[in-house]
């Protein structure tokens, strides 16, 4: 620690730190338009000038490049410093519109006033979308530009002498209006150094320098993945979120958690008019910190307000019609009660959702157990989770992995088994890139198709679908001291000898070292049997490399946000209870008469759409949801629920952090939050639930479920619900041989893609993927040639019985003999090609047929 003096006050600061950060931490306002906290200084804007005593050649120095040193005497407030900063700022402002700064009426522009443009001011000035929330604007105020010799009068203002460059408004997420750009290059560095994406560059030179995306075209043609990190750092209105760009001025901020994947990035909703209008990363989650992905930033906006349920629905003849909330509730209770009386609770099954909060899950499980008295409770992906959890339990003797995702960042060696981690768990992939780029970690990717992580990998194993576990097991075999427990070797089809050799070299080195080692596993959402084997192979790898400490090296990332939480809360079959696929079979055969479904959509999530549809049509459904999902369409009663962003509660992410969700919205009409609906429904059924709100549920759940905490004690992003230590020794396990494919068509790869939203897909909305980027099946050019199709052609994928229409894109990243279809494409259409879970999905083959246009 060094002692320095800032504006006469003595301050302790770490020697070598960037002075500007220390100044800001002292609460001293200082302009620093090109600095990004934590990154190397760029020293381009010169607005951070301060006076450092004894500085050479002058005492006026840049505080972003200056480093704290013992005895430093700094002043930020001398007339010379101010004058210097004003001078610099006037150069910047020469090529920037000054409408928000110099409009003579700007201080008068309050709601109700008539503005310069003869318009009524509603709640903001109309001249720039960033007005009142702009760092450049604040910076000019900070250094009193208004007093600076009549700002810019008589100076050459190049901004007003050159035609403005064209804005790019062609994509649904990011609006790029370069006329506002001050070339601070923060966005370039955020995209390259924070995101490792590098979609932005400086083009040209001198006065023609400009920010450009990709090879100079529109943003959506570059490799930008719309994470918005550049938006967060842009000090002007150049890079802005497109949704709500003009109303994104938040009245208040609510910290919450993204529920679009199990990373569980903590976010802040900016709220205006009782709806989120903007999202910023919230640093609470120590793994995600200041980063989120396109889903976290934009999914609040996935579904138009008028597509959300604001009133409950009940079946009247063929149609679902809005009915008063009480009536719907009573009808739902009557229906369930009728079945219970006539056939017993066991004729009712309950489906929960991995996107629900722990509190909702706790109530749902209680309803099943205590009120309906049925053991049949699960969720569409329940078996996949249990297969993984079972494998981990057998291998490591724990039900809950103690591993902390932040250890992935410091690992020296990382092995990832996922279909495309970048797409399924974006910020986890980002942290892995951090480890590779910043710390030189060595990465092995095991995936049947190319993903953005591959270029960062030292080795990429590309097994044919179904052979992922075998590929990992081949690595285990290379380092395990006793391979006898690993079962018969299975040759990982598709994996080349040279890639295997490089990967083996990496894990051998890791096994021989005692530095950090991480195995990151994200199962595919379709195949429980394969998931079990993959989890076993991953656990084996952790054990072979780290022995007793294996459990801390293995990271399991479920596809959806709260799989771990709802399972902890009891959403899963009780003793003698049926699992999801059995529930579906029983409902189809009439043994299950009614289903209570909370936020799940089996038609979207479950493999075997035919069986599922038959089951949902045969049984009577009570659905609780915030949108009219394809399952809700088949219901007798739909109880209108508040959307996810308006919920209060907690969710448990992949490394078991307990994250708070806080409401960023209120009911518009009669919709209510899940906790209230479930409580009311339970009480209608005679349940005597007395929960006033989510907090009351949490308090009770904390006393019943190990590891959970009441609200007062939850520290979002830090508290973790980790379980007991292992009592058994780690044990290597054998894996099964993948089922042989039927027929000789293409093997199907199904996974979660990046952009398509659950809610949109659940409704089968055409806007589920607003960019229409994921509405394609990806095919290897070789197979395309054999099938006689070209990129862009509409084709039919068929297993002989079912058909999925889709256009194809040719891509060398999928192996010959395979076809990749995003899970959420067309409301989960691809699930019709797969059998009801329990059978190996990888054994399915499909044929591609060019669509004959009449």
């Amino acid at each position, binding site marked *: 620690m060094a002692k320095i003096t800032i504006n006469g006050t003595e301050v302790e600061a770490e020697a070598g730190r960037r002075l500007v950060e220390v100044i800001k931490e002292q609460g001293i306002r200082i302009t620093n338009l090109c600095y990004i906290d934590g990154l190397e200084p760029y020293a381009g804007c010169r607005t951070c000038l301060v006076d450092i005593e004894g500085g050479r050649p002058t005492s006026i120095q840049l505080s972003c490049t200056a480093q704290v040193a013992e005895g430093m005497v700094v002043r930020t407030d001398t007339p010379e410093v101010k004058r210097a900063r004003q001078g610099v700022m006037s150069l910047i402002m020469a090529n920037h519109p000054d409408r928000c700064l110099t409009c003579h009426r700007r201080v008068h522009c309050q709601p109700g006033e008539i503005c310069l443009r003869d318009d009524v001011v509603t709640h903001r000035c109309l001249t720039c979308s960033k007005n009142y929330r702009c760092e450049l604007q604040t910076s000019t105020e900070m250094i009193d530009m208004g007093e600076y010799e009549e700002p810019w009068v008589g100076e050459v203002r190049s901004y007003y002498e050159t035609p403005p460059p064209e804005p790019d408004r062609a994509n649904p997420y990011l609006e790029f209006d370069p006329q506002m750009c001050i070339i601070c290059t923060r966005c370039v560095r955020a995209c390259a150094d924070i995101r490792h994406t590098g979609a932005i*560059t400086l083009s040209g*030179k001198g006065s023609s320098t400009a920010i450009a995306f990709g090879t100079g*075209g529109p943003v959506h043609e*570059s490799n930008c993945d719309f994470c918005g990190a550049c938006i967060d750092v842009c000090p002007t209105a150049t890079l802005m979120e497109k949704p709500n760009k003009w109303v994104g001025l938040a009245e208040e901020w609510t910290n919450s958690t993204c529920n679009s994947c199990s990373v569980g990035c903590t976010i802040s909703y900016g709220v205006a008019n009782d709806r989120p209008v903007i999202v910023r990363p919230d640093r609470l989650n120590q793994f995600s910190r200041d980063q989120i992905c396109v889903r976290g930033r934009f999914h609040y906006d996935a579904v138009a307000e008028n597509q959300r349920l604001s009133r409950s629905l009940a079946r009247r003849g063929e149609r679902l019609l809005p009915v008063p909330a009480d009536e719907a509730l009573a009808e739902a209770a009557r229906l369930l009660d009728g079945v219970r009386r006539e056939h017993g609770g066991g004729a009712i099954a309950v489906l929960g959702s991995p996107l629900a909060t722990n509190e909702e899950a706790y109530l749902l499980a209680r309803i099943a157990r205590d009120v309906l008295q049925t053991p049949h409770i699960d969720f569409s992906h329940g078996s996949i989770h249990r297969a993984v959890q079972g494998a981990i339990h057998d291998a490591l003797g724990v039900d809950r992995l103690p591993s902390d995702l932040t250890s992935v960042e410091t690992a020296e060696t990382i092995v990832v088994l996922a279909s495309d981690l970048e797409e399924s768990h974006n910020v986890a992939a980002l942290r892995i890139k951090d480890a590779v780029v910043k710390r030189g970690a060595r990465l092995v990717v095991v995936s049947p198709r190319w993903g953005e992580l591959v270029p960062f990998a030292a080795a990429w194993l590309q097994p044919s679908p179904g052979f992922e576990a075998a590929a990992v097991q081949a690595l285990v075999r290379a380092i395990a001291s006793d391979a006898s427990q690993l079962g018969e070797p299975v040759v990982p089809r598709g994996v080349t000898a040279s890639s295997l050799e490089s990967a083996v070299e990496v894990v051998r080195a890791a096994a021989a070292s005692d530095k950090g080692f991480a195995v990151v596993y994200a199962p595919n959402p379709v195949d429980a049997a394969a998931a079990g084997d993959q989890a076993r192979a991953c656990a084996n790898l952790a054990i072979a490399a780290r022995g007793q400490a294996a459990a801390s090296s293995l990271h399991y990332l479920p596809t959806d946000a709260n799989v771990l939480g709802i399972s902890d809360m009891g959403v899963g079959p009780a003793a003698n209870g049926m699992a999801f696929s059995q529930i579906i079979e029983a409902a189809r055969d009439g043994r299950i008469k009614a289903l209570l479904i909370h936020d799940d959509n089996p038609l979207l999530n479950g493999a075997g759409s035919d069986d599922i549809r038959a089951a949902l049509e045969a049984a009577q459904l009570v659905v609780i949801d915030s949108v009219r999902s394809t399952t809700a369409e088949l219901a007798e009663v739909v109880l209108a629920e508040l959307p996810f962003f308006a919920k209060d509660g907690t969710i448990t992410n992949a490394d078991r952090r307990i994250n708070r969700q806080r409401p960023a919205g209120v009911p518009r009409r009669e919709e209510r939050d899940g906790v209230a609906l479930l409580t009311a429904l339970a009480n209608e059924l005679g349940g005597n639930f007395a929960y006033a709100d989510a907090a009351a549920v949490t308090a009770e759940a904390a006393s019943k479920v190990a590891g959970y905490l009441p609200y007062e004690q939850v520290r979002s992003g830090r508290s973790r619900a980790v379980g007991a230590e292992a009592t058994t020794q780690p044990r290597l396990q054998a894996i099964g041989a993948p089922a042989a494919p039927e027929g000789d068509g293409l093997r199907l790869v199904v996974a979660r893609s990046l952009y398509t939203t659950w809610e949109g897909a659940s409704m089968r909305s055409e806007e589920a993927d607003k960019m229409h980027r994921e509405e394609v099946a990806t095919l290897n*050019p070789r197979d395309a040639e054999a099938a006689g199709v070209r990129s862009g052609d509409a084709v039919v994928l068929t297993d002989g019985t079912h058909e999925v229409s889709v256009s194809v894109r040719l*891509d060398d990243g999928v192996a010959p003999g395979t076809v990749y279809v995003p899970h959420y494409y067309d409301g989960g259409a691809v699930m019709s090609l797969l059998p009801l879970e329990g059978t190996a999905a990888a054994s399915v083959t499909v044929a591609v047929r060019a669509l004959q246009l009449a």
Partner: protein
Amino acid sequence: MPLETEATAEIRALVADLRPDDADMLEALHRVQHRYGYVSQEAMYVIADQLRVTPAHVYGVTTYYSDFRTTPPPEVTVAWCGGPACRLKNGAGIRDAMQAVLGIELGEDTADGRVGLVAGQCNGSCEQAPQVWVGERVVGRLTAARAVTLARALRDGADPASV
């Protein structure tokens, strides 16, 4: 993963011996421009892949140097020498004359894609100042009148080797 086509395979072969982190970017751009006359988007993708940088990075470098083009070149490129000897001998007049006849500024191509005008740097043959280069051939000791004739001929489709 971008699709390999015959065109990209050809570009890849052209830069196949260049390595990441080896200051090979300019070499790659020169080779591509030499072969194709410009650096296409496709080429930027291939170079990025080969040198393990992003396409935006390649684009940034390409646009930094005025020598590199990102659009197909015109049939004839006329480089106007902006060096001191040429300037002393009415280089500016030569430029104005050519610009007026062709109806374009330095750095632009005629609408029919036939003639492009770019700024060149002194190549040491100052004894022939003031001069332009038609393709790679020096046309020196110009006068404004000769520049007009030259520009007209090129505009109207004359063989660049004969003017």
